[in-house]
C-alpha cells in the first residue's frame, strides 16, 4: 500500500493543481536556486524501512523522499512512528531492514563515528528543546562551535546572529531553567541552526505552546525554507501548523524586513509537501490541497477532528 503512493522526484517548485501560473518575480528569485543539477538527489530518502521494538512493529515498510529545499510535514497520530522516523535520519536508531539515504549517501550501516560527519549537516529541534541544563543559553547555542574549537570571537558573533534569527538576543546570559517553554524551543532552534545545516528536522516543535508562540515557531520554519534554502522535516499533529507552512511564504521587503505573505487562490508557491503516517506506513503523500480533497475517512477525521 505504502510503496504505490510514494512520490517520484519532482522539481522543487510546483504549481497548484487547480491551474494557474507563477508570477514573474517569484519565478526569477526561486528558479535561480532550483536550476542546480544535484537537486535531483533527495536530501533524505527512506526505502522500505522496517523497525520494531520487541514485539511491536513501529515502522512497516516506510518509503519517502524529501527533496532539496523542500519542507515535508509529517502528520499522524501519537505513536504512529513520526519521532522514530526522525531519529532514524540522525542515526540515533538503526532500522531492522531497508535503506536510509541522506544527500544520496547510504547511512543505514554507518558506525557512530561515520554518523558524526553526517550529523554535522543536520539540525535537530527536539520536542521540549532538550537544552543542556548545566549550560547557559550562550553555551547551548555555541555548543557545536565550542566542540569544534572555534575561536571565541567567531563563536560569539555566530551565537548572536543565531539568537537574532530566533529573536532572543536578550536571553543570551540566561540559564535554560529561567526560560519559558516557547523560549526554550527557540533556543533549541538557534542551537540546531548553528553551522548552517542543509537539513533541519522539527519534532513537534509547537506541542504545548500558546497559539502566538506556535505561530512564531512556524514562521521560523517558513523563513528557513524560503530564505535559507534548507530542506526540512516538520513533524506535527497540529493542523494550524500545516496551514501556516503550506499557505504562507517569507519574502524580504524593500526595507530589509522579513514579511510573511499568503499565497493566492490560484497560485501555490510554497515548497511544502505533506506525508501522513499511520501504523508505521505512509497513507498519504502530496500537497495540502490534495490532502483536503482526500476521501479517506481516517484522513478526514484527522483534519477535521470528527
Amino acid at each position, binding site marked *: 500500500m505504502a510503496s504505490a503512493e510514494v512520490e517520484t522526484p519532482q522539481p522543487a517548485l510546483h504549481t497548484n493543481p487547480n491551474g494557474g501560473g507563477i508570477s514573474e518575480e517569484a519565478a526569477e528569485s526561486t528558479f535561480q536556486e532550483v536550476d542546480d543539477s544535484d537537486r535531483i538527489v533527495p536530501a533524505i530518502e527512506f526505502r522500505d524501512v522496517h523497525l520494531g521494538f520487541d514485539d511491536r512493529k513501529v515502522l512497516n515498510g516506510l518509503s519517502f523522499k524529501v527533496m532539496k529545499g523542500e519542507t515535508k510535514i509529517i502528520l499522524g497520530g501519537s505513536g504512529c512512528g513520526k519521532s522514530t522516523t526522525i*531519529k532514524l535520519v*540522525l542515526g*540515533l536508531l538503526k532500522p531492522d531492514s531497508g535503506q536510509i539515504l541522506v544527500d544520496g549517501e547510504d547511512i543505514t550501516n554507518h558506525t*557512530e563515528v561515520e554518523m*558524526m560527519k553526517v*550529523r*554535522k549537516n*543536520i539540525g*535537530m529541534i*527536539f*520536542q*521540549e528543546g*532538550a*537544552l*543542556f*541544563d548545566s549550560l547557559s543559553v550562550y553555551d547551548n547555542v555555541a*555548543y*557545536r562551535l565550542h*566542540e569544534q*574549537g572555534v575561536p571565541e570571537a567567531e563563536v560569539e558573533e555566530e551565537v548572536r546572529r543565531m539568537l537574532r534569527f530566533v529573536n532572543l538576543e536578550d536571553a543570551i546570559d540566561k540559564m535554560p531553567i529561567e526560560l519559558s517553554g516557547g523560549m526554550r524551543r527557540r533556543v*533549541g532552534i538557534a*542551537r*540546531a541552526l548553528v553551522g548552517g545545516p542543509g537539513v533541519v528536522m522539527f519534532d513537534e516543535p509547537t506541542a504545548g505552546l500558546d497559539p502566538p508562540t506556535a505561530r512564531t515557531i512556524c514562521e521560523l520554519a517558513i523563513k528557513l525554507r524560503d530564505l535559507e534554502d534548507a530542506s526540512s522535516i516538520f513533524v506535527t499533529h497540529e493542523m494550524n501548523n500545516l496551514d501556516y507552512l503550506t499557505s504562507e511564504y517569507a519574502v524580504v521587503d524593500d526595507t530589509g524586513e522579513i514579511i510573511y505573505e499568503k499565497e493566492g487562490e490560484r497560485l501555490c508557491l510554497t515548497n511544502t509537501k505533506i506525508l501522513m503516517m499511520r501504523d508505521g506506513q505512509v497513507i498519504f503523500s502530496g500537497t495540502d490541497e490534495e490532502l483536503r480533497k482526500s476521501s479517506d475517512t481516517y484522513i478526514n477525521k484527522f483534519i477535521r477532528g470528527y
Partner: protein
Amino acid sequence: MNIATRLLIEIQETTLLAARALRGIFKRPTYINETIAQMDVIGVGSLTIIMLTGFFTGGVLTLQTYPTLKYYGAQDQTGYLVALSLVRELGPVLSALMVTGRVGSAISAELGSMVVSQQIDAMRSLGTDPDRKLVMPRVIALVLMLPLLTVVADVVGICGGWTVATTLYGMAPGMFFSSVRQGITANDIFGGIIKPLVFGLLIAAVACRQGLKTEGGTVGVGRSTTTAVVTASIVVIITDFFLAKALQVLLDMPT
C-alpha cells in the same frame, strides 16, 4: 529473558561502555576541563564525608579492640591493629561505599535525567559522543580520586584511633604511633591503593551505564539511581574479597 542472560548482558554492556569511554582517552577533543570539574566534584566534594567516616571508624576500632587486647596484655599493639584494618580493608571499602552513595547516585541521576529530557540525543545529534564527553571524565575522575580519598580516610582514621586510645584509655601518645610504624608494611599500603583504583573504575562504569540506560521518565531516573547504588555497592564488596585474595598471592602476604 531470564536473570542469568540479563546479568551477562549487563556485564557486557557496562564493560563495553567503559572500554568505549577510555579508548579515545588521548584523542581530541580531550575534555580536560570536564575531567577537572568532575575531579573537583567527586574528590574535593567528598572530602568531608570521607574524613568523618574515617575518623569515627578508626575511633570505634580502638574502642572495641583495646579492652580485648588489654585482656591479653597486648594493648601496645592497638595502633598496629587499627592501622592494618584501615589500610587493608576498611579504608578502601568504606570510602568506596561512601563515594558510591554520594557520587554514584549523582552520576546516575544526572545522566538519567539527561536521557529522559532528550539531552543525550541532542548531544549526539550535535556531533558529540556522550561516551567520551560524559562517561570518560567521570571514569577518570573516580579512578584518580578514590585512591586519594582512601589515603585521606586511612590517615584520618588512624588519628581517630589515636584520639580514642589516648583520651578514653589513657594510652601514652607515642606508643600508638610507634606500633603503627612497626606494623604496617609497604605492601599493605600498596594493596590499599590498588583496591580503590579498581573500585573507582567499577563504580563509575556501573553508575554511568545505569544512568544512560534510563527509560520511562522521572520514575525511571529514580529506578536507575537505586539500581546504580545497590549494584555498585554489591560489586565493590564482592570484588573486595577476590582482590584481597589476589593481592595476598601477588604481594606474597602471610596467609
